[in-house]
């Protein structure tokens, strides 16, 4: 009986073995190797040389760019994640109305989120062009001279925050699914009790939506701390390091300055930061996330 079950399991493992092998080779292997590499001096070509905790010591105590890039990333996450949640929830509420052609509106708002990041970045380089960009042309209609956006260190980080709203359609669909899950009897009871529209949103919709908001918050923070493609394409960290995000700095150290050991240490610090924030959010959920039961 036992051998039959073992044989059955083995067949199952055989079927998933391509994935397991791929995971071990391309995810788990590099993941674990990078722990070792973070304690070495390694330029990718010659064998790594053990330097102990030197990389960590240096980046925590003696690397101004580390702190700067962490702050640039943290600031972006602090603004773009809540902004994405507010915009996503608001859009989902609007697109949850029973109006004619609602599926077309939903599709329209969702479409931008499936545009590849590189294509989106290229489009936004033009939209944010100070002279011939769409945004400044629109502002010009109201006799406002728009800023130089990506070319102004004061505006470049906020331009990227603004750009992040473009992809909010993805989370909007999840919020929309969450809204559909809210039992209608709660609204009926609220109506009988005389609750207005705003009260219903505040006391029924938002609390019932908190599990979805929680999910998007966690994913948003992880995504923000790994923010890379857009800045690599659009600004390369400039002007004046105002968009030197953590992941971009890590990439530069690894592939431009051939400092893989240091970059591995940076990656593990990033991992620790993301894990800490995620754990804090998980711990906080008891206070604000409401599950139906």
């Amino acid at each position: 009986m036992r051998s039959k079950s073992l044989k059955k399991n083995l067949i199952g493992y055989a079927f998933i073995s391509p994935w397991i092998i791929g995971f071990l080779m391309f995810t788990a292997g590099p993941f674990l190797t990078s722990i070792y590499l973070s304690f070495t001096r390694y330029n990718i070509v010659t064998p790594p040389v053990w330097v102990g905790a030197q990389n960590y010591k240096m980046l925590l105590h003696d690397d101004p760019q580390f702190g700067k890039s962490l702050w640039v990333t943290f600031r972006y996450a602090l603004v773009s994640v809540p902004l994405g949640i507010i915009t996503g929830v608001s859009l989902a509420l609007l697109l949850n109305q029973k109006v004619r052609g609602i599926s077309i509106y939903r599709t329209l708002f969702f479409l931008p989120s499936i545009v590849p990041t590189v294509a989106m970045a290229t489009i936004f380089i033009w939209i944010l062009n100070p002279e011939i960009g769409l945004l400044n042309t629109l502002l010009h209609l109201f006799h406002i001279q728009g800023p130089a956006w990506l070319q102004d260190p004061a505006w470049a980080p906020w331009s990227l925050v603004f750009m992040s709203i473009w992809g909010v359609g993805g989370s909007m669909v999840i919020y929309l699914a969450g809204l559909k899950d809210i039992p209608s009897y709660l609204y009926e009871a609220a109506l009988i009790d005389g609750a207005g529209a705003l009260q219903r949103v505040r006391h029924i919709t938002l609390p019932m939506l908190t599990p979805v908001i929680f999910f998007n918050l966690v994913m948003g923070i992880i995504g923000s701390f790994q923010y890379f493609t857009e800045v690599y394409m659009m600004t390369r960290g400039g002007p004046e390091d105002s968009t030197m995000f953590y992941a971009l700095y890590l990439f530069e150290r690894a592939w431009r300055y051939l400092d893989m050991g240091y970059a591995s240490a940076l990656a593990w610090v990033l991992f620790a930061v993301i894990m800490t924030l995620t754990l804090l959010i998980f711990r906080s959920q008891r206070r604000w996330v409401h599950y139906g039961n």
Partner: protein
Amino acid sequence: METEPSHDPARRRILKNVVGTAAAAATAAFLLQPSQFLLRKKRTPVRFWHQLGGEWLQPMESIIEAFNRSQERYEVIPLLVADTEADSKLMLSMVGGDPPDVVLIWTQATSEWAESGLLQPLDPYMRPEEMAWFLQNAYPVVRKSGWYKGRLYGLVMGFDLWVIYYRPDHFRQAGLDPDRFPETLEELTKVGEKLHRFDSGGNITRIGFLPTGFQTFVPSFGGGFYDEQTGALTLNRPENLRALRFLAESRKQIGFDKVVRFESGLTSGDGASWPFINGSYSIIAEGEWRVETLRKYAPQLEYRTVPIPPPVGGKRNASFSMTNFLVMPKGAPQPRGAWEYIRFWAGLDDPARSAGFYPILGWMPLSPRVTHAPAYENWLKTAPTYRTFLKVAESQNIRITPPVPYQLYLMDQVQKTDDLATRGTLSPEEALEKLEKDVAHERQRRKELGYAE
């Protein structure tokens, strides 16, 4: 009347014999005459990676074909690599134990890569007479590029220099004499101011002259980032400060924000859309590749080239130089074949042969000897403005990327210094002090981690 198919056995036999004989003759010819295919199969492949796509691909392939035609032993197999991934692809190929034999690189990092063990020196493969010819005949900038710790890691294959391009029609419109080009940078700035054009709102519509690029102009001031004699960095020296002040002041005068807006409204700088062609600039410091651009896309445009005029007390015929290198990765399976290809293209054994290659790419040749070859002379007749570059190339006042093992970091910081000073975020003094401090900090960091300083 319908014709019946022939069933005559004699005719069929004759036909069979004719066809059989023809087939046998064709087979014999194929086997006895060594075809190109068979010849190639015998040759040793030399894998060559480059980044020359677009309009450069065809000229590049013609050089490879010329080499392959000349060879019985080696055959170059090219691979076009996207420039965004060229460096990382090379490194990963080495980690994977399968590097190419020869690579054309644009990244100004031969010293850094040599120190990191990515490259192998070329000089062991150079015959003594080739090295002697190289040291005796190559342009000064070529002779001093690609070396690290006494070894040659990259042979220059085309190098960029910057000179002034200007539009005589704009001079005449402004009542200036295009035959009397300013002798000093200070005079040039004043002439440039007369050529600026603004709309009624004060926005720039044409830039007369705006010096841009710290590293481009620093050699004219007698400055630089590295002392070639002592091997020491010279980041914060009076000449550098004077250059940075000049750039920052010029930018401040016209208004940084105005320039950003003007330049962002221009089309991309490549090919036919180079803004000099449509008159957005009257005078501009640019590289030699623009001569070919203008020849191709604006053959009727009247323009001239002159060396960057020195500031008062500065250096004549000065420029910064960026170089393409042919390099051999460490572990290349066919280093001898790679060297055969490098020397063929560079023309170390026959400058007249390579004289035909440089014009089709529009690149600066390795040596003035190449320019005296008839093929090159003929091309120069069609692109006379190129002579300015050849003149500057002979100068000793050309500066190159310092051959230190942290070249990319250093030049990134120089770029940031330029940005900080010309934007007005820091004064030129503060920006240079920051540059010196940041680079010293990086060197200390490298030292503590055990990297070469």
